[in-house]
């Protein structure tokens, strides 16, 4: 197994075209445990952290650009990003440990294609786009279209994510992410729930809700979104969100949780995430927002 370390996107795409059985990595926080657990070794591992563009974090008037290999600690330490997207920052702040977060990245968390990836529902509700490179140039794809199933993506052989685009939010918008894990940290979501709301004088004008760990990929919950738009965020609306989220689940029974448990808790967390997002959108956040489902 070779270790390759390109310094430009072009060099990386060339390497990948010359070595079809190569695997890219950023933080390697999933790749190394998978290899240690006996997954077949690729011919080469390609380290993307040497490419400046993948390690860049920048903002302009209209949007943020987040390099695919930027360690997530740089996101959690960005006060500006946290102010605009507290839910996204909450989600990446729940991945692994401090040590892991100094290595892991949004690109890796997405392309590892785990149904339970914490950052993915948060990226989806914020409408993030992935810029994907290959030998024939780049294309821009909604994050929601990258993962196709557990461990599989829509990326073609030789393609990799260069960076993410994130539009700055309109006024009176808030997002939130909650997850259920039996432990407070160092754990994998049994259920994850993200919500983003825009309010106008107490009435919801836009809503996106996405769930993680309850289906083969992260899923949007259109029925819950429809139950919110055009209405105030009251108990009735929140109950409708919970019901729609439970209904949208397509979970499995496994060592981490049962179907019944995931359905029930998906509704609870979706409701709580919407409530928190609404508080943030209205500027009324109490500062008592909970990390994860626990108090």
């Amino acid at each position, binding site marked *: 197994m070779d270790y390759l370390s390109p310094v430009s996107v072009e060099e990386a795409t060339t390497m990948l075209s010359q070595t079809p059985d190569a695997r890219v990595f950023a933080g390697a926080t999933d790749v190394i445990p998978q290899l240690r657990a006996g997954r077949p070794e690729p011919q080469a591992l390609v380290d993307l952290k040497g490419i400046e563009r993948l390690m860049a974090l920048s903002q302009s008037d209209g949007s943020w650009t987040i390099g695919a290999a930027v360690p997530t600690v740089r996101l959690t330490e960005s006060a500006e990003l946290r102010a605009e997207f507290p839910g996204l920052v909450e989600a990446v702040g729940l991945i692994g440990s401090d040590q892991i977060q100094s290595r892991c990245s949004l690109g890796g968390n997405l392309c590892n294609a785990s149904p339970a990836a914490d950052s993915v529902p948060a990226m989806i509700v914020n409408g993030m786009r992935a810029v994907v490179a290959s030998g024939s140039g780049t294309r821009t794809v909604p994050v929601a279209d990258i993962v196709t199933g557990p461990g599989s993506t829509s990326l073609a052989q030789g393609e990799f994510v260069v960076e993410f685009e994130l539009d700055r939010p309109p006024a009176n918008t808030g997002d939130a992410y909650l997850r*259920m894990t039996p*432990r407070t940290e160092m754990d*994998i979501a049994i259920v994850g729930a993200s919500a983003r709301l825009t309010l106008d004088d107490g009435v919801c004008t836009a809503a996106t809700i996405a769930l993680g760990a309850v289906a083969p990929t992260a899923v949007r919950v259109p029925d819950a979104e429809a139950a919110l738009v055009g209405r105030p965020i009251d108990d009735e609306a929140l109950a409708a969100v919970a019901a729609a989220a439970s209904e949208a689940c397509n979970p499995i029974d496994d060592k981490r949780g049962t179907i019944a*448990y995931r359905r029930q808790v998906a509704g609870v967390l979706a409701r709580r995430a919407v409530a928190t997002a609404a508080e943030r959108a209205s500027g009324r956040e109490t500062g008592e927002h909970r990390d994860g489902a626990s108090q």
Partner: protein
Amino acid sequence: MTVTEETTTSGPGYKWVGTRPIRPDGLDKVTGKARFGADLALPGMLEGAVLRSPHAHARIVSIDTRAAAAMPGVKAIVTGADFPDPAELGGRPDEEMVAANIIARDKVLYEGHVVAAVAATSRKQAQRAAAAIEVEYQPLEHVLTVDEAMADDAPLLHPDLKTRGMDPAPEEPSNIASRISHERGDLDKGFAEADLVVERTFTTKPVHQGYIEPHAAVADAGENGRATIWCSSQGHFAMRTMTATVLGWEPSKLKVIPAEIGGGFGGKTVIYLEPLAVALSAKSGRPVRLVMDRDEVFRASGPTSGTKIRVKVGVTNDGQLTAAEAWMAYEAGAYPGSPVGAGGMTILAPYDIPNFSVEGFDVVVNKPKVAAYRAPGAPMAAFALESVLDELAAGIGMDPVELRLRNAAVEGTQASYGPKFPRIGFVETLEAIRDHDHYRAPLGPNQGRGVASGFWFNAGMNSSATVHVNEDGTMTVVVGTPDIGGSRASMGLMAAEEMGIDVAKIQSIVADTETVGFNDVTGGSRVTLATGAAVVEACRSIKADLRARAAKTWDCDIEEVEWVDGQAQHAGGGETPLSLQALARKSGRTGGPISATASLNARGVGAAFSTQVCDVEVDPETGEVTILRFTTAQDAGTAIHPSYVEGQMQGGVVQGIGWALNEEYIHDRDGRMENPGFLDYRIPVASDLPMIDTVVVEVPNPAHPYGVRGVGEVGIVPPLAAVANAIAAATGCRLVDLPMSPPRVLAAITGKADG
């Protein structure tokens, strides 16, 4: 680097005992200099890998190592055929079982059972060669739980296993290795006297000790029929004995050098890799290192038993326990030897109950052979009993601590398992919790408080220690019990107290099997008691020797010489006192080097009791349990080094909380473990827990020179029930199956609402 010594006042009348010097091994451990089991590298050393069974139960039809042996870098391969047949070792049946567990011969009995081991010039080559060994299996039906294993038509693990302890002895084999029982009084009469009787059935899953350091061993076999083993264990003498048994060697042909140990909790009192490493080294002529991966630790080293326990207890309206009945079945894993005996002896031990019956079964199942885990067998038993006591207290409207106080065993009580208790401190632990401000602190919505108590015997056993006086007036204390919990510091403190010198002048070391007299394992919470007693005895010999030398110097009678504050003083005051350093310097002229050894079998073990209170909050919509506050009161006899006593108390509680809430072995239908790693085998992380508050109760053990009782184990006994009782208080739901994970708790809450 600056090291700040913690200092506090010492115990009653003591200068050093009861103080908190930093542990002598601490610096090397926090800087990474300390050498653990896997850290030793020898010139020419080979790396090993182990091939393990993928089946829970299968007959081995054939093993073909030819292709593997021909691979590059492969120097030796061993299979069961390279070891003496366990049945022909001439040892005891349990020794045969140890040998059979080390490497399979005709049958594999659990996923992870060793089938072969390889030594090669790199670990990767060894792993590839192990994977290339061709094994043909004939899979057999397996059993995973006591219910499956005890069923009439259950497939048998051992065709010759007949239940011991049955009258009449059974003629047919079964998976029940033995039956134990204790009885007293008249059970029917006792239950008839009760105003309230509660009966419940509880289950617990196998849980692992979870030590951070995986098993590791390096062996170097010489041409002279001898071998040296470096390994991390709780007792290198025991490793020597067991390894020699499996190899069919005389123990004295093996020298075992202890590495630092990264946690054991009972799980490193047994061998796994050592005989394989010696056999590979003997075959290859080179040193061989074997190190387990974490998944091997889970799949093949001992967890403790999964259990099923039925308990029935009766109480009068004024809080007198009248009768108790317990039926207990413990999984032994693949070979007999579950701690059901200890479970049966401990379950009622804290209480004076006139009528009782306890019946227990040791049951083999197709899982790894269980190993000792901190108060082996007692936590599951206490989970069952203390949960029922909680329900009884609520049922008669009595405070749960008060119910326990009314029935608590005291000095002179005939313990349920036989002997009369000497002075014990159970009542004092109950009073400490009852009087603690935690017990009266207000609770909020969805919050609940639970209490529970626990008992552990503690052990004495064999210890040896040698003490040398160095020429600079310092002392070296040589022991043979590995230091897991700070025992080098405790030995130093007791020696300093005896000798009247600064603890900083005492170096405590753990020596190998050829450098110090025989020692049993560091286990049973016995080291501070037993090795400590040996150190004290050796120091007393040294003091007598020093007084004799001073008397010789002063040409007076030894009775005129006293040892005070680290120096010899003439009773009449007519001579300038002789310090330890002065006596050491001229030892060559007063009789030679100053040294003493003490070897003993420790008697007068002081039993340990703990009472704990736990506050939880339960999220009624997710079933998540948050431990809000936890206080533990434990009788330590005398806390030699209070920080390490508190550490043991806290460690036991934390392991118990993990057991209560999330830890469990999860197996698929084929008997393969699904969660052999710390991601899905959920030990609590620091942010899951509050600081565990400790109350060190000191009721000195009259049989020990410093009043020591063992403190390492009893702390894990009460938490399972303390947490369950707190959840019951918070939710109104009595959970009887561990772990009380969020899905289980939510199902209980939802079930109650639906019902």
